[in-house]
C-alpha cells in the first residue's frame, strides 16, 4: 500500500554496508585499537625480555608463562570484569564485587568442609563440590540482590550504595568464617581441581620457549565460557537490549516499557553471582576460603572494563572489549613480573592505567557528545 511512495524514490533509504565495513562493525573500531595495543604490548614485552636474556619459563612465549602465569592470572579479575561490564553498560557501577568474591570464597569453603555456616548443611551436603560451588555463586547473587534493592528501592546512587556494601560485605565475610580465620580446603582434591586441573594435558603439542606443553588450565576454560555466555546474553537477548537501553537513556527505556527496577536488580544479581563464582575459584586456587581473598580486586576489574571501551555514561561497551582489555592488563602485569618490577610499581601503573582508560573513554564521549548535541540542538 505504500508503493506509490517508495517506487518513485531515487535512493532506498536503507543502504547495504560493504563487507569490510561489516567486519569492522562486527569487531568494533574500539576493539580493533585494543587488539593493536595488545600486539604492540606483546612485542614490547618479548623484545625487552629478550634483551634481558630471560630463558625458560621466564620467556613470554613459553607454555609455562602463557598457560601458568598469564592465563591463570587473568581469570579472577577477568570474571569480575565481565560482570562489571554489564553494570557499567547499564550506566551504573558495582564497587562491591571484591568483597562479594570474599563472601563467595568463604561460603564455598565452609560448605565444602562443613564448618561455620556450613555446619548445619554439613550432614546433607558437605564434601559435595557441586554444592560448594553453587553455594558460593548463590551467596554472591544474594549480595547482588541486596545491592539491587538498595539502588532501586532506597534510590541510593549506585556508586555510594556499593561503596557502602563493599565495606559491609568485607566485614560479613569475616563474620561468616569461623572466628574470622581462613577455612582450608587443601584436602579436597576434587575441589582444588578447579584451579589446578588441566585439559588436554597429554596432547602431543611440541614445547614452546623451552618449556613443555602443560595443558589448558580448567580455570581459564571456565573464564572463557562465562565470558562467552555473558556475551551471548548481552548481544542476543532482550535482557541485554534492556541493559544497553537503560544505560543510554533510562527515561526512554522506561517509557518503552522496560521495568527498570527488575532489570537493575537482575543485573546486580548477575554481577554478584559472577563475583561469587570468582570467589569460589579463589578458594580453589589458594586452597582456603579466606575473607580477604577478594580484597582490592574491584579496582583491576573496573580498570579493565573502561579500558575495554565501555562508556562511563553507559549505553556502550562490549564483553569482547572487556575480554581484550583483561588480556591487555594481564600481559602488562605479566611483562612487569617477567622483567622483575615489584608489586608497588605494578600498582602505580595500574592506577594510572585506570585513569588513562577513563580519560580516553571520556574524550571519546565528549567528541561524540559534541556532535550529538550539535545535531540534537537543531531539529
Amino acid at each position, binding site marked *: *500500500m*505504500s508503493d*506509490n*511512495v*517508495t517506487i*518513485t*524514490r*531515487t*535512493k*532506498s*533509504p*536503507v*543502504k*547495504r*554496508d560493504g563487507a569490510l565495513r561489516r567486519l569492522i*562493525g562486527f569487531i568494533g573500531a574500539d576493539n580493533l585499537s585494543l587488539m593493536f595495543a595488545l600486539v604492540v604490548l606483546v612485542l614490547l614485552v618479548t623484545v625487552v625480555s629478550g634483551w634481558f636474556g630471560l630463558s625458560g619459563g621466564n620467556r613470554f612465549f613459553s607454555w609455562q608463562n602463557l598457560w601458568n602465569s598469564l592465563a591463570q592470572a587473568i581469570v579472577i579479575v577477568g570474571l569480575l570484569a565481565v560482570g562489571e561490564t554489564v553494570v557499567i553498560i547499564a550506566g551504573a557501577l558495582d564497587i562491591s564485587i571484591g568483597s562479594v568474591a570474599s563472601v563467595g570464597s568463604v561460603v564455598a569453603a565452609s560448605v565444602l568442609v562443613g564448618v561455620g555456616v556450613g555446619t548445619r548443611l554439613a550432614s546433607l551436603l558437605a564434601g559435595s563440590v557441586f554444592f560448594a560451588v553453587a553455594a558460593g555463586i548463590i551467596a554472591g547473587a544474594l549480595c547482588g540482590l541486596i545491592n539491587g534493592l538498595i539502588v532501586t528501592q532506597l534510590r541510593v546512587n549506585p556508586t555510594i550504595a556499593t561503596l557502602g556494601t563493599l565495606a559491609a560485605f568485607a566485614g560479613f565475610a569475616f563474620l561468616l568464617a569461623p572466628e574470622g580465620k581462613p577455612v582450608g580446603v587443601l584436602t579436597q582434591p576434587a575441589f582444588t581441581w578447579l584451579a589446578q586441573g588441566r585439559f588436554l594435558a597429554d596432547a602431543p603439542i611440541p614445547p614452546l620457549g623451552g618449556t613443555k606443553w602443560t595443558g589448558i588450565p580448567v580455570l581459564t576454560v571456565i573464564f572463557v565460557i562465562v565470558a562467552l555466555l555473558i556475551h551471548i546474553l548481552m548481544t*542476543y*537477548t*532482550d*535482557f541485554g*537490549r*534492556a541493559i*544497553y*537501553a537503560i544505560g*543510554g*537513556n533510562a*527515561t*526512554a*527505556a*522506561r*517509557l*518503552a*516499557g*522496560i*521495568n527498570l527496577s527488575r532489570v537493575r536488580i537482575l543485573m546486580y544479581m548477575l554481577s554478584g553471582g559472577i563475583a561469587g563464582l570468582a570467589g569460589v575459584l579463589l578458594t580453589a586456587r589458594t586452597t582456603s576460603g579466606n575473607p580477604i581473598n577478594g580484597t582490592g580486586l574491584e579496582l583491576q576489574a573496573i580498570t579493565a572494563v573502561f579500558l575495554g571501551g565501555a*562508556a562511563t555514561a553507559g*549505553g*556502550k561497551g562490549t564483553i569482547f572489549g572487556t575480554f581484550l582489555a583483561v588480556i591487555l592488563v594481564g600481559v602488562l602485569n605479566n611483562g612487569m613480573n617477567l622483567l622483575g618490577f615489584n608489586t608497588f610499581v605494578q600498582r602505580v601503573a595500574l592506577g594510572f592505567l585506570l585513569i588513562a582508560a577513563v580519560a580516553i573513554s571520556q574524550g571519546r564521549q565528549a567528541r*561524540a557528545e559534541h*556532535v*550529538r548535541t*550539535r*545535531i*540534537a*540542538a*537543531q*531539529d
Partner: protein
Amino acid sequence: MTMTSPAAAPRNPVSPPDAAASLPELRGTLKIRNVSKAFPNVQALADISLDIRPGEILAFIGENGAGKSTLLKIINGDYQPDTGTLSIDEQALSFSSPRDAHAAGIRVIYQEPEIVPGVDVAENIWIGELPKRMFLFSRLRLNEQVRRSLAEYGFENALPMNLLGDQLSSAQRQLVEIMRALKSGVQVLALDEPTSSLTDEEVDRLFTLVRRLRDEGVAIIYVSHRIREILRLCDRIAILRDGSLVAVKQASEVTEAEIVRLMVGRDLSEVFQRRPAGTDHEVLRVTDLHSNWHRGVSFHINAGEVVGFAGLVGAGRTELAKVIFGELTKTSGRVLVDGQEVSIHRPDEAIAKGIGFAPEDRKREGLVLVRSVLENASLAILRRLSRFHFVRGRLERSTVAGFVERLRVRTPSLDQEVGKLSGGNQQKVVLARWLAVKPKILILDEPTRGIDVGAKAEIYHFIDDLANQGLGIMFISSELPEILRLSDRIYVMQNGRITGELTGASATEEAVLGLAMADQLSALPTGAATPNREGSIL
C-alpha cells in the same frame, strides 16, 4: 575568526543558481560557494552555492535529512566543510568554532538554546560575556540595558526579567537566544525550525520580530517544514534535496504545490482523507481525573476513533498522556480500559494493559541516542520478537525495515546510531517504534513535529489505517489544521481542564481557539510546571 590573507581570498566567483543573481551585489552578503560535506555513508551536502543577502529572509526547505541543519552548522562553525568556502565582502571566513562565527556577526539559533537554569534572564543573555568585575552598580546598569533593549523590541511582557533559566518556556528560551544575537550586532541570523513548539500567537510575534530585523538590514535564514509559514514570511526560498540545492525561488513566484514537487521530486497527488471508523466500543474512559496538572478531566475514546486533543502549549495534554501511561501520578479519578478499571503505576504496566505512548520529546524521552536505529525501533516490541528471551534477529530486522522504509527514515543502515540522524528522521524512529506496537490505545504526542510534508502524509495514512483496524488513538497536536483533518472528535484543553468537545461541522479553527483560550484569567492549577502565564509569550 581567522581571515586568510587578501591574496588568498578571491576565488573564482561562481554565480549562484538563483534568478536574482544578476542584481548588484549588496555589502555584507554571505557567500557560500561550492560547499560539500560528507559523513560516513552519507553525502550530507553536495556543492552548495548560495548568497545570503542582508535585508532578506531566505528559507531553507527540504525533506528530513536533506542537509538543512548541516548547512547551518557549517555557517555556525560547528562543522567545517570538506570543500568550499564562505565569505563576506570578499573576505574568506573559516570558522573553527561557533565563537568565531559569532565574532563575524553570524548567529544560528537552534531549537533548544543553551540556557543556564538557575540564572535570570539578563545574565542568560549576557552569558559568557559578563563584565569581569561585577559590582552592584554594573549589575544594575546591565539590567537597565537589557530592559531597554527588550522594550525596544516590544518584549517587556513576553520575557519578564525576573524569571530564572529553568522557568522559561521554549518561546522565551528562543527569545533569550535572539537577544544574545542582537546585543552583539548580528549580521546573519539563522533560525532552525523555530516555530515547532510555539503557539500561533507566539509565531506571530516571532514573525514581527524577524521582519523588523530584516528591515534593519540583517540577513535572515529561516528553516522550517511549514510551507505556508514560509510563503507568508520569506522573500526567497532555497530548496534542498539529498544534499543538493535544487532551486532558489522568489517566494512571490511559487505555489505550495510547486515547492513540494521540488522538495520531494514528485507530486504529492494523493490528498489525505480520513475515513472515520469509530465504533461504540469504549477502549478508554477517564473520569474525573485529578493530578498536580489536572482538575477533573473526563473523556473517552472508542475503538476505531482518532480523538484529537487541542489546546495551547502548556494546557496539560502531555501530562494527561503521561498520567494515563503511568509515568506521572494522579491524585484521584478512574481510568477504564475496555470497560475494566485499571490501576497503572508504571509505563510497562500501561503497555501490558494495551496502551502505547509516543512522547513528544524525542531526545529526552523517546530515544536511546547512542544505540542503533534497529535497537531503538524494536525496543517496545522486544517481548514479541523474542523466543525464550532470545531476540529473533531476522524477524526484528525485517519488521523494523518495513517501518523504516514506509516512514522514509533516511539512514545509511539500520545499524546507524540514532543520534546521528537528522531531527525529523529521529522523530520517525520514535514513531516507527510505537506504530509497530499496535496497542489497543495509542497516544501520539505531537507525532509530526519536525517532519517533512511527504512523510507527514504517510504518518496520517498510518494513523488512519491503525484506527480502521480498531485502535483507539489519542492524538495530541498543536497544529490545528492537522488536528481538524485527522480527528473524528476533538477535545480542547486549557489549564488542566477539558473546556469542550467538538465533532463534525462544529469542529472549526475558531471553535477550537475559542475553547483553548476560554478562561484566560483563571489561575493555573497548583504545581503546574509551565510559566506560560499570559497564555502565550512571544
